[in-house]
């Protein structure tokens, strides 16, 4: 069905323009994103996202949930960074309650975050290969990701939407096998990482499709509010783990990965090197998990004082902000999630317009969009 605006748009188009709909069901959009693209020959002249195909109004549902329950709705936003989303929400409640969480909980939270980041980047790498026409990376990426998901399954009870955070710490202690399994994973992954680079990074076809494609300038990056690897590929330092360290990130040694080329290949390299940094963080902490409680004592019904609280975390895709307005009752008055993908999507216009239609898939792959996080 064509709606009213579309007919207007079609009448405004010139004779040589070609209007193309990508999605909502398209393999390279990785979800229900619909893009309306205007083409002149093979060149993209206009691009317009149409959203709302998976809008569930999570912000409204939060207003009806208690401070303990709303956290788990957010696993369904960016499901590949489920742990970090939960962490941001738990942190905002802790901020309101002025609750200090035990050291053990902090360390386990960081470990889980970095494992999630690794799993997310592995999935991104696998799908990028597939989007650009290589089938093998898909299997290699998923092979390693499976090991992480099994670790999650053992400790948290689920593989994807882990729901492991509670206000005051984590829900239960780690599984006895956790440290052993993480060590086994790290050993295997470090052995496999050169294979990743052999398959894609050094591949001439891959480099030709990504180098110099989809340039985003640092000024536009900031103006569009981009964050995460998308911004760091343009040389904009924006890692919340460094800017405003949370939950003990100030005590671990790692580098913020920056590339300055601003093209697809730079964004690719940022994610690849970020995986190495995540491995570094996990190695520092895995044998040094402090003993003690894993959860601070909290009341059964949480009530936040009247006021406003904001927490920021670095998910696998960028900065997630949680803005909580409390009116002093046991339910949030207003929740707002500033999701990284929402802002990154707005830069797609800048990246893709002027390029060729064939490069659109590469551009989309390097933005690494997760659509439920955009629609919420």
């Amino acid at each position, binding site marked *: 069905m064509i709606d009213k605006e579309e007919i207007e748009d079609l009448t405004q188009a010139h004779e040589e323009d070609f209007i193309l709909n990508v999605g909502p069901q398209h393999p390279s959009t990785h979800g229900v994103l619909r893009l309306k693209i205007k083409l002149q020959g093979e060149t993209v002249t206009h691009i317009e996202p149409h959203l709302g195909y998976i809008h569930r109004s999570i912000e409204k549902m939060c*207003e009806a949930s208690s401070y303990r329950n709303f956290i788990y709705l957010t696993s369904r936003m960016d499901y590949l960074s489920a742990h970090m989303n939960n962490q941001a929400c738990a942190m905002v409640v802790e901020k309101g309650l002025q609750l200090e969480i035990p050291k053990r909980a902090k360390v386990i939270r960081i470990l889980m975050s970095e494992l999630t980041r690794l799993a997310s980047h592995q999935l991104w790498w696998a799908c990028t290969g597939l989007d650009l026409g290589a089938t093998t990376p898909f299997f290699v990426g998923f092979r390693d990701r499976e090991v992480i998901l099994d670790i999650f399954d053992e400790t948290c009870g689920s593989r994807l939407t882990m729901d492991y955070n509670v206000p005051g710490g984590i829900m239960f202690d780690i599984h006895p096998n956790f440290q052993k399994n993480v060590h086994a994973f790290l050993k295997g992954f470090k052995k496999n990482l050169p294979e990743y680079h052999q398959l894609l990074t050094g591949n001439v076809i891959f480099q030709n499709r990504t180098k110099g494609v989809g340039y985003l300038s640092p000024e536009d990056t*900031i103006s*569009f509010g981009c964050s995460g690897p998308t911004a760091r590929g343009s040389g904009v330092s924006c890692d919340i783990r460094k800017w405003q360290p949370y939950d003990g990130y100030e005590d671990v040694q790692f580098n913020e990965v920056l590339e300055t080329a601003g093209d697809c290949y730079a964004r690719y390299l940022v994610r690849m090197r970020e995986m190495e940094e995540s491995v570094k963080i996990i190695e520092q902490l895995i044998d040094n998990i402090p003993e003690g409680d894993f959860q601070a004592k909290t009341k059964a019904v949480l009530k936040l004082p009247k*006021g406003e609280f904001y927490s920021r975390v670095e998910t696998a895709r960028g900065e997630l*902000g949680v803005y909580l307005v409390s009116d002093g009752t046991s339910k949030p*008055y*207003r929740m707002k999630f500033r999701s990284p993908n929402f802002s990154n999507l*707005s830069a797609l216009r800048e990246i893709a317009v002027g390029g060729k239609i064939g490069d659109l898939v590469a551009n989309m792959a390097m933005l690494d969009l997760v659509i439920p996080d955009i629609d919420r």
Partner: protein
Amino acid sequence: MTNEELKIFISAHTPEVVFEESQFLNTTISFDKLYSLAKHLRTNPDADFDYLFCLSGVDWKDHMLVVYHLTSRKHKHNVVLKAKITDRVNPEVHTVCDIWKTAELHEREVYDLFGIKFTEHPDLRRLFLDDTWGFPLRKDYKDDVTIVQL
């Protein structure tokens, strides 16, 4: 700048503001004064608020707020601007998407969920929902199918 210096800086440009300190410095301002203050905060090199990291709406029943979270990457200071709108029937505020490009999508979202119109926005349409739908995040919204029981 520290919060105290920011207060002096903002009051010098727009005297009729209300400050409140929580995690950030909150600045409540009438909706018709917002645009000129926002432009001043962006263009003045001493303030240089170049990164709009969150734009949201809040409905307080007797008035509505559009909340802008701003940070300066150079000076590392933050400020929160709140545009206060008392007219619930025809709420309006000037767009800031010529100052920060990210506002374009964010303002469409606020329009979609709160019904706040952003004047001179280049492409103000509903973002997620149908044109016939109400504004779900307003507190007087009637949820016909009661998916969310408040």
